[in-house]
């Protein structure tokens, strides 16, 4: 394997958890809900995924457990914001704090234990192709899941009835209600989907990226995923591009550190965060770009008249 291939491979590995978490949040926000709790759902997915895989020995069971952990955490968020009408920003923060604490508690017994790595797909012959073989046909399965999910979300939002309803609910929940759509139910479903992908993203960290459990191992990736959604102007294709770009920045920093470039390691480690801020500034200066897709009722709770 050439060094370039290796770099590209690691970029994909670094980008996939961002893409997974962000594609779910994109759907959540399209339905008009702002869930700032990605970090919390992700870290819950990571710890539950690791624990299940460690106990059963099956990485796939870990993936499933992580997905359900993400869903369960997101439904807590749904219960508060959709049924009890709490402030979405504050509730998202609560989910993050709760997730980080609870995951630490659950994971305290798993620190330092060996993990189970999700095996890479290996298609005979195809994955042996020179240059592109490993890159396209020999990734771990969740990479394909993330790409399929992105394509699926893009298709669903733009070409299906379900997508139209999600967009309508996010645009104007009062009108959607008047037409007889169940705003809260649609939003619950979207929130649960966001929880599932965040859980998957967490599983990716603890079962593929670094197959072990480390406290706070999400390291702000949930927040970067949130920024990616804004950056993408709520368009899935752009989101995927953004995720790979960010993965690239992340890996660049790591490689530079590894090669002992004469730059303080702290500066390189801060690259993803600086890049996030820069990306947000760039996208915000061009408001027209995001106007049409911005869900008009983003972050507002919906209480129907009775």
């Amino acid at each position: 394997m050439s060094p370039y291939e290796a770099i590209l491979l690691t970029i994909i590995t670094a980008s996939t958890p961002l893409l997974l978490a962000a594609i779910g949040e994109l759907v959540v926000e399209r339905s008009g809900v702002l869930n700032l709790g990605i970090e919390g759902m992700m870290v819950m997915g990571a710890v539950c995924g690791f624990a299940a895989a460690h106990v059963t020995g099956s990485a796939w069971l870990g993936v499933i457990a992580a997905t359900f952990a993400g869903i369960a955490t997101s439904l807590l968020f749904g219960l508060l914001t959709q049924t009890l009408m709490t402030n979405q920003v504050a509730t998202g923060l609560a989910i993050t704090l709760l997730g980080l604490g609870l995951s630490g508690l659950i994971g305290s017994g798993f620190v330092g234990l060996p993990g189970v790595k999700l095996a890479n797909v290996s298609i005979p012959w195809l994955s042996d192709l020179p240059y592109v073989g490993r890159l396209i046909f020999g990734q771990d399965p969740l990479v394909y899941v993330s790409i399929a999910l992105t394509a699926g979300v893009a298709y669903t939002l733009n070409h299906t009835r379900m997508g139209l309803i999600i967009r309508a609910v996010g645009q104007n929940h009062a009108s959607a209600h008047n037409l007889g759509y169940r705003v809260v139910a649609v939003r619950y479903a979207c929130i649960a989907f966001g929880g599932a992908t965040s859980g998957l993203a967490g599983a990716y960290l603890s079962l593929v990226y670094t197959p072990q459990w480390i406290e706070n191992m999400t390291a702000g990736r949930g927040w970067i995923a949130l920024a990616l959604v804004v950056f993408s102007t709520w368009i899935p294709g752009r989101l995927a591009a953004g995720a790979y770009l960010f993965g690239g920045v992340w890996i660049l920093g790591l490689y530079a550190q590894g090669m002992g470039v004469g730059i303080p390691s702290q500066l390189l480690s801060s690259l993803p965060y600086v890049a996030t801020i820069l990306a947000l500034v760039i996208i915000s200066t061009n408001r027209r770009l995001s106007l049409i897709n911005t869900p008009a009722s983003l972050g507002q709770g919906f209480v129907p008249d009775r």
Partner: protein
Amino acid sequence: MNKLRKHLELNVQLILEKRPQSSGLMNLFSPLLAIVLTVVVGGLIFAAMGKPPLTALYLYFIDPLTSWWSVEEVLVKAGPLVLIGVGLAVCFKANVWNIGAEGQLTVGALMGAIIPILWGEWQSPLALLAMLCLGALGGALFALIPAWLKTHFGVNEILTSLMLVYIAQLLLDWFVRGPWKDPNGYNFPKSVSFEGWHLLPMWGDGRMHFGLIVSLVAALVLFWIMRHTLKGFEINVVGSAPRAGTFAGFSQTKMVWFCFALSGGLAGLAGLIEVAGPIGQLQPQISPNYGFTAIIVAFLGRLNPLGVIFAGILLAISYIGGEGIQIELGISSKITQMFQGMLLFFILMCDTLILYQLKWISTKPNQPTSGHAS
């Protein structure tokens, strides 16, 4: 199929009905209820972990208050929480979301440490005053970055202020491992120890310090401002009805700057007080997440500076209690963070009780009385 659907529709449903006026009693009751719920669920979690729930709860919430030593410890922890919490309470009231107090705290500590580290020989009360001012200034300036990005480019302040936390922590890490490392410190990542007038006046067992008075004064002053002055009125209006705020001639932009400067300044001051007080030097870790815990303090205190004092003390207990049960029962200190998250969770939930009342209604339209319904 249709019949089944009809049958389901005959069910009752729990709904929220807006109260005609926010209920005064609930304003006090809701945080209490949140605490009770946290304690109950906490007990269940202890039980699930196979620990004696009552003992654990006692160790967690009561034991820290049974000795003067630990009460002092609680107050020392409450100091920064209250100082940061009152600033955030004003922010959140104005609907400005500064989530990056942890970073502002870090930069405040770094700025204030310039004097003991670079001008170590300057020993005078003025040096301490200058440190306090630099700490506040550092936090405020660092907080103005997200304020500027928001007002100038329209960038969401939640994400930027949070990203800056990571950057600030890496900055501190670089300083204590690089240029500001104590040359005689056996290569540990620490700065020189502060001495003399570079440390806050202490009393009690030597842990109670001047910073506690700063916190108390800040809370009282902000209480007065919020309650009685036009500035407080402005904060309230801009936060709850932005268009009416514009109509009143209150500038949203200036409000964002004001809130970030204030809360950042207080967070920076808290950071300086930590390093010039209990810690006494710079090191890679200077705060056990005070900046994030203060978010909970602000909400638990109902965004009211007086309430924040009590909330700060409660959250400080959770830190000390967490350490206590870690030693006594061998439970991970992560339990503290979980309790804190849970508390915020329940406060938000109970806040619903202030605005709404829960009601069971029948979703079934009234049963026709005449009896010939289809």
